[in-house]
């Protein structure tokens, strides 16, 4: 079984985003597709899955030329895709989501017992036994929704399984479960096309690696024959001398002090401090309660008990506006749902948190606003350049993320809380982000970096807090800390 | 269940009579004037009135009547507005042996005890004849209709006018394409459109006064008050005042909701007292012009 992608070209309107991409893989292969944000990975995948049509080029599966007019065609050909965005129907049960369009019937009516049974087996086979098929998809955590997506793709016994950044919302055990699944599929002679920004995974899983830059394949190689650094250089098109910034000078006085903070059912008795000029990482498995903590600090949910001090003065934020004016900023984990306004332009999105900042009388000073936004676009190298007028949905995931970061930096925060800021962000962009927060820290700000990426949570920070089941289960100086230690705190039972 | 209601009316006598009023709509001055008249008359007579409003929905009228029956009213007055008939309502009333008085609107089908109302055709004719006198050398006369012909009240009025002017070759009649929906705002808009395409109008006939009042304003805005006269129907107070002023609002035919309403209630009581009553009573519709407008104003105010 072989899948061949030959010289695929794709343009959106007048902009060509794929300039003749080639890719080949056989049964049991794991072909990793890596590339910077906006390189064209998702576009390529949309073409493979029939969601987008290609302008020129050919797709061959087992010596047969494929003409994919719709996702349905692709599925008929045995190509199944798990997209970057979650597509489950939150109002329906996991069972119905898994068997959508293939529900078992008796006498024309749906046979629910049989349906749940099949769903159960699907989840078990995929190794996601923890999920109850009867629950509503919407009631599952983001991570588990991702797992259901994957199980759903497997339901039709695909010959080619395409995964677009599946690990973005997974961590710890969930990630292990995914890898185990991929290995099992390899044995079943399934071809897996795997898009990820986590190079560690890629080198661990892939049988071959395709590096895309700006819509062209710059190299096809194998883990054995390459290194993470080489890959990063290829993706970025330039050498990234070092990923993480140098150690910062000793931090100053306490800026944010949290004591015994609790919200029933979310987190309990959380205490820590952020000092001026320091970057503190926060690691935890999905569901550990980090995002809830972040939202609470930001005044989006009320403090049930405990105290927060800013510059030694007690503060109590009843809504985000209060937190923002006190100098806090929160980049949320869920870009689509809480990060951007899809119907608006990049400019409107970037300016959203500072609408009142640049005004002439009661009116917004459009010229100054435009100038400021364009500054940020260049500063963060948001692609395509001059995208201020484009709707933000036209940007690739990573560039959307950069736009949101820009929005918050415009509020000139003193304490910056980042919840999974590099989720789905390529290495070059990550380095930009690390640089930016490093610069912030050096100029006396405090940064709380919530992340499920072990390397970054250690590498980019001064200290690491680990959360488990809503409690701080450990704290380590990043200097010389190992991933095992951190992971240990996040799973070990008694601390 | 009908004998149960029999008892109802029995002890009904003891604690004073209850008369139900089924209004097809109260969304217009004429009809809620009717409703008020019935209530006013009832107070004098120590009769309780339960009034319902179907908001212009025939089915709701039927169910309202059923509700009234459930509430053991002794008689029902139906103010059917534009309704042609209400068989269901009449049938259930018949089944419950409850007398039915129709006011203003006589139903084509179905059994009722007694009807009191105007002769709309006649009013139209009156207006027509008056206009004929008013405009000796004829001219173009516009007709503003209230609504579709599912309401034959308006139809009768217009036909009345046509029968008076139509045969006279001096007159050309133009019907406005759009309806005035029985309201002043509608009358205004329709008149404005009319004036855009017919500059040479001599007179306007509206199927009710409310529309005429709007039309009059449109004519005034177009500075044509001296050229175009108006003729309406109903005797709405504002119209009477305009007519009394002696402006271009020259005539209307009284169709007194107040009078009909009061007579309606009296008729209901007579029936309940077992008197045998006239089946159909046409309330005459005196023509109201500058000469007699003031006295009708005084009447309606008293």
């Amino acid at each position, binding site marked *: 079984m072989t899948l061949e992608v030959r010289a695929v070209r794709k343009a959106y309107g007048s902009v060509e985003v794929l300039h003749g991409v080639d890719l080949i893989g056989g049964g049991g292969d794991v072909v990793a597709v890596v590339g910077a944000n906006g390189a064209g990975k998702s576009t390529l995948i949309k073409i493979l899955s029939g969601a987008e049509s290609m302008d020129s080029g050919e797709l061959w599966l087992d010596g047969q030329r494929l003409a994919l007019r719709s996702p349905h065609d692709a599925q008929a050909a045995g190509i199944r895709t798990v997209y970057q965005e979650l597509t489950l129907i939150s109002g329906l049960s996991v069972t119905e989501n898994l068997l959508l369009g293939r529900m078992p019937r008796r006498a024309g009516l749906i046979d629910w017992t049989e349906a749940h049974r099949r769903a159960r087996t699907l989840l078990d086979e995929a190794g996601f036994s923890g999920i109850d098929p009867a629950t509503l998809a919407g009631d599952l955590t983001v991570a588990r929704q991702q797992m259901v997506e994957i199980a759903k793709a497997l339901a039709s016994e695909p010959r080619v399984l395409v995964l677009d950044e599946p690990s973005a919302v997974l961590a710890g055990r969930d990630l292990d479960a995914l890898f185990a699944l991929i290995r099992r599929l390899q044995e079943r002679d399934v071809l897996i096309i795997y898009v990820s920004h986590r190079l560690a995974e890629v080198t661990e899983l892939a049988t071959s690696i395709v590096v895309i830059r700006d819509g062209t394949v710059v190299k096809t190689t194998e883990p054995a024959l390459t290194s993470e650094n080489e890959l990063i250089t290829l993706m970025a098109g330039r050498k990234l001398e070092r990923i993480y910034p140098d150690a910062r000078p000793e931090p100053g006085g306490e800026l944010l002090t949290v004591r015994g903070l609790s919200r029933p059912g979310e987190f309990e008795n959380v205490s820590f401090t952020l000092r001026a000029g320091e970057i503190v990482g926060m690691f935890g498995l999905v569901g550990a309660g980090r995002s809830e903590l972040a939202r609470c600090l930001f005044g989006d949910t009320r403090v*049930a008990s405990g105290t927060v001090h800013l510059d030694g003065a007690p503060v109590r934020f009843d809504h985000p506006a209060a937190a923002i004016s006190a100098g806090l900023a929160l980049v949320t984990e869920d870009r689509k749902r809480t990060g951007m306004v899809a119907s608006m332009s990049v400019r409107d999105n970037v300016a959203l948190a500072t609408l009142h900042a640049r005004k002439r009388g009661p009116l917004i000073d459009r010229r100054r606003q435009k100038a400021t936004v364009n500054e940020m676009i260049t500063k963060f190298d948001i692609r395509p350049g001059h995208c201020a007028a484009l709707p933000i949905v036209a940007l690739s995931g990573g560039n959307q993320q950069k736009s949101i970061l820009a929005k918050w930096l415009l509020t000139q925060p003193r304490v910056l809380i980042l919840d999974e800021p590099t989720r789905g962000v390529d290495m070059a962009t990550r380095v930009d982000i690390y640089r930016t927060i490093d610069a912030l820290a050096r100029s006396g700000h405090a940064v709380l970096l919530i992340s499920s990426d072990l390397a970054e949570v250690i590498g980019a920070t001064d200290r690491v807090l680990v959360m488990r089941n809503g409690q701080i289960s450990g704290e380590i100086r990043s200097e010389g800390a190992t991933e095992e230690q951190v992971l240990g705190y996040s799973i070990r039972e008694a601390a | 269940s009908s004998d149960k209601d029999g008892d109802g009316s029995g002890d009904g006598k003891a604690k004073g009579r209850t008369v139900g009023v089924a209004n097809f709509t109260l969304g217009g001055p004429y009809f809620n004037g009717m409703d008020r008249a019935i209530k006013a008359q009832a107070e004098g007579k120590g009769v309780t009135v339960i009034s319902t409003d179907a908001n212009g929905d025939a089915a709701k009228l039927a169910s309202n009547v059923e509700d009234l029956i459930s509430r053991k009213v002794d008689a029902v007055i139906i103010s059917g507005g534009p*309704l042609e008939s209400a068989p269901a309502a009449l049938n259930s009333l018949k089944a419950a042996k409850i007398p039915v008085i129709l006011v203003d609107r006589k139903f084509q089908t179905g059994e009722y005890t007694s009807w009191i109302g105007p002769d709309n055709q006649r009013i139209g004719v009156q207006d027509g004849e008056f206009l004929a006198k008013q405009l000796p050398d004829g001219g173009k006369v516009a007709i503003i209709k209230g609504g579709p012909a599912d309401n034959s009240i308006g139809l009768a009025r217009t036909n009345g006018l046509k029968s008076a002017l139509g045969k006279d070759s001096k007159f050309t009649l133009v019907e406005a394409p759009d309806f005035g929906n029985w309201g002043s705002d509608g009358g205004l808009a329709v008149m404005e459109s009319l004036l855009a395409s017919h500059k040479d109008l001599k007179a306007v006939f509206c199927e009710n006064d409310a529309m005429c009042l709007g039309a009059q304003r449109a004519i005034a805005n177009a500075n044509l008050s001296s050229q175009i006269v108006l003729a309406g129907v109903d005797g709405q107070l504002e119209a009477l005042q305009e007519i009394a002023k002696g402006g271009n609002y020259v005539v209307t035919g009284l169709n007194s909701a107040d009078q009909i309403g009061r007579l309606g209630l009296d008729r209901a009581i007579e029936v309940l007292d077992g008197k045998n009553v006239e089946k159909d009573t046409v309330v005459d519709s005196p023509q109201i012009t500058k000469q007699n407008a003031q006295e009708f104003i005084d009447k309606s105010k008293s």
Partner: protein
Amino acid sequence: MTSRRLTKPTEAMATSSSRWPRFIGGRRITPMGVLVVLLVLLVGILALSTDGFLTERNLTNLLKQMVTTGLLAFGMLVVILTGGIDLSVGSVVAFTGIVSAGLIADLPIPVAMAVAIAAGIGFGLINGILIAGFNLAPFVVTLAALTTIRGLAFVYSEVPISPSDPGFFSLGTAMVGPIPLTTVIMFAVFIVGGIFLSQTPAGRAIYAIGGNAETVRLAGISVRKHVVLAYAISGACAGLAGVILASRVGIAQPSVGVAFELDAIAACVIGGASLAGGRGSVRAAFGGVLVLALINNLLNLHGVQSYWQQVLKGLIIVAVILVQRRSQRRRA
């Protein structure tokens, strides 16, 4: 320090649950519970505050009166589940009513009625094709349909038609034991419809489309077909309602049915349906129909003056959905 900083947990709950209620407490809340309490309450008030309520006649009236709204509400629910809306039902009621009354001059009554209902389905199909096929906004398409179909009703006959043949009334007046035939028909529609929505692939697809049409398409299910089906169902219900109404009133009017769609929608939402699509239940929608009917009955039996009835009806509806929202919050 902590001890001094005790905050009312309710406060915290309120905010947190208003955020994403569905993620805390796990279990999903149906508005059914609230509805039942509400209905019991209404019935209680009616029974105690009026003597007319528990009479056989009044109850029969109630059963008759809820038929039109009931039928329309079911059709509306199906459309709302797809994330759409059908404003044209009131006009369809008028059109099918007058056509059925008109046709029995030359056709046997059942045929005439069948033709009229078919016309209703036809209108639904057109709505559906315009909405799903050309992906136009349901609100505007059905709004235009409201206007056009109303016009057509008048084009068919300016004047009301009251058939002489008493057979025409039988549908609207026949009783099955103590229960009006029309009410039985309505219940049948709700039961069959309930099974359709919860137990058949098509029904589930309609739910799914309201949740995420894209996903449904990717699953190889035709979104178009099912959306068209939904509007056809709504059209069929409206057609049936129109025929029943004409037969019940005994006279068909081209002007009937104005604003009927609003009650139907209100019933669905009182029943907890989400106008965004994907959420709503047949049982609850029927509960909504009952609530509206009881409110009307309450106001009528108390002889509340017409305009005050309107004032109160609006206020009560708000109160009802307010209670529901609150209860969802608390349970969350």
